């Protein structure tokens, strides 16, 4: 293709984005757009899958049958989210196996929040309330993103995420209204998950070099800092309602701004976890890799069986 032709296509593409047209897999798109979307959608899919681990950790120990069933259903939903997202990324010309390969080699990332351990039952409440809560804020912003399959996956996923968030909050509410031990368990979980949840929105805007391009393609519609602020403003009153204390001494309502002011985030911790040195990075990757390796013979057998079946029906036909 001539340079002129490409320039032309690029201009048309930019116009479509500006008009809020959805870009579909078969449409022409700049290579950088394709790559950025593969990176982000696969990272999102990996997060759903790795996110099953800290919650799966409590399935066998859930404190009541009702909670056990609800937790199983939630983790199953997360697996389903992983499926839609891998499929959305596949429309851009990468296979699920390749993406999984990238996760296992460390080339692809997943949300760092899942590198924290779920050590008590209250963590299951805190994850639903805060982690799914933060995920919704990120994802609602993505429902209007320019790439059609991603936007549609987000619409579907957001509905389930808000159910998860309510369910998590309800666990916290029950604990907060429970015995002193239960209340302490809930407070401890909030203390541990609060700051990592704020980090889920990514680095501050001035440290986020990809933001400008992502905004241009409507892959992001609000900046990291805007989304983080929205999360804090939404969550603090929820904590107050159940009489739990957000672990930030600097947290204060700012009348003038119409937002909460909050204390400094420990970005050293953030980068440490991103670079692989969080409390559970090693365990999460080991769990994923060993599931994959132990399952290799199963996947091979399924393929071999499908081949045999195809050959049989071919023989019959001829």
């Amino acid at each position: 293709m001539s340079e002129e032709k490409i320039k032309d296509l690029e201009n048309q593409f930019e116009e479509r984005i500006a008009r809020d047209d959805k870009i579909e897999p078969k449409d022409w798109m700049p290579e950088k757009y394709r790559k950025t979307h593969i990176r982000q959608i696969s990272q999102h899919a990996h997060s759903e899958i790795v996110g099953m681990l800290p919650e799966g950790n409590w399935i066998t120990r859930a404190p009541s049958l009702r909670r056990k069933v609800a937790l199983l259903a939630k983790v199953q939903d997360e697996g389903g989210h992983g499926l839609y997202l891998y499929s959305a990324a596949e429309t851009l010309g990468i296979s699920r196996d390749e993406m999984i390969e990238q996760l296992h080699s460390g080339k692809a990332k997943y949300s760092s929040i899942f590198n924290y351990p779920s050590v008590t039952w209250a963590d299951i409440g805190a994850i639903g309330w805060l982690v799914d809560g933060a995920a919704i804020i990120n994802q609602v912003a993505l429902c209007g993103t320019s790439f059609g399959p991603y936007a549609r996956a987000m619409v579907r996923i957001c509905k389930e995420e808000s159910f998860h968030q309510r369910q998590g909050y309800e666990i916290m509410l029950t604990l907060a209204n429970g015995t002193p031990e239960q209340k302490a368990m809930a407070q401890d979980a909030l203390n541990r998950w609060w700051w990592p949840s704020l980090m889920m929105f990514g680095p501050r805007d001035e440290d986020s070099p990809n933001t400008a391009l992502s905004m241009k393609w409507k892959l992001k519609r609000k900046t990291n800092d805007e989304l983080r602020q929205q999360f804090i403003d939404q969550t603090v009153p929820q904590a107050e309602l159940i009489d739990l204390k957000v672990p930030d001494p600097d947290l204060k309502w700012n009348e003038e701004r119409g937002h909460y002011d909050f204390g400094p985030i420990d970005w050293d911790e953030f980068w440490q976890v991103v670079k692989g040195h969080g409390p559970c990075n090693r365990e999460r990757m080991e769990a994923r890799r060993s599931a994959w390796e132990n399952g290799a013979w199963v996947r091979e057998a399924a393929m071999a069986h499908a081949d045999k079946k195809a050959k049989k029906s071919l023989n019959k036909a001829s």
Partner: protein
Amino acid sequence: MKENLYQYILEIADNCLILGQRLGELCGHGPNLETDIACTNISLDLLGQVRSYYQYAAQVMEDGRTEDDIAFMRMEREYRNTLLVEQPNTDFAFIISRQFMFDLYHYLFLKELQHSRDLSLSAIASKSIKEVSYHLRFSSDWMKRLGDGTEESQRRMQAAINTLWPYFEELFEISDAGKALIKEGIAVDTKGLKKDYLNSAREYLQEANLIMPEVEHFMKGGKSGVHSEHMGYILADLQYMQRAYPNMNW
């Protein structure tokens, strides 16, 4: 009568509870995303059924206990599940074989339980059988895929079936409570089901390129509360919260 019915409900429900618990261990560790979701889904179905059974058991006993007391607060000897469902998740061949052996039984059993004169049991059976026929489809499809897949998968499947087969017969064992309730038209006379089970299993296994093992000595004990050494660990997980934090609402 009340005591018999209670024991009988436990015999049915405890199988679902312990198998559901075993499947719950797998969440996030399956060979691929689809099987992972399917195993979680089966666990979810089984535990949903467990809730209906225990709620009914609590209603029968009227002694102030709840579904959770029944699920979590019994001693090991009071659980009535068969040894089969306690067997560990050794590999995916074991998981599928255990599932298949149970699903086939479960399906045949519920088909009969639908006609129980106890309306609560027949209602639970009618609701559950739809789920269980899906479970059987899943596990028997995987039996075929793995049995008639590669050399390795065939070898693993045959090994799993050989190890697990001695546990199938206990599914059909009839307890004293069962005997009394068969007379009332409430319990299923599983003696009659065993032939169907064996015929059906033989066909499935043949289609899956697997040999039905010839077993002389069958394993049993679970139904009378004498479990394998695995059971204590299963209950340690299951009961952890209720034992560590008794008498609280969750």
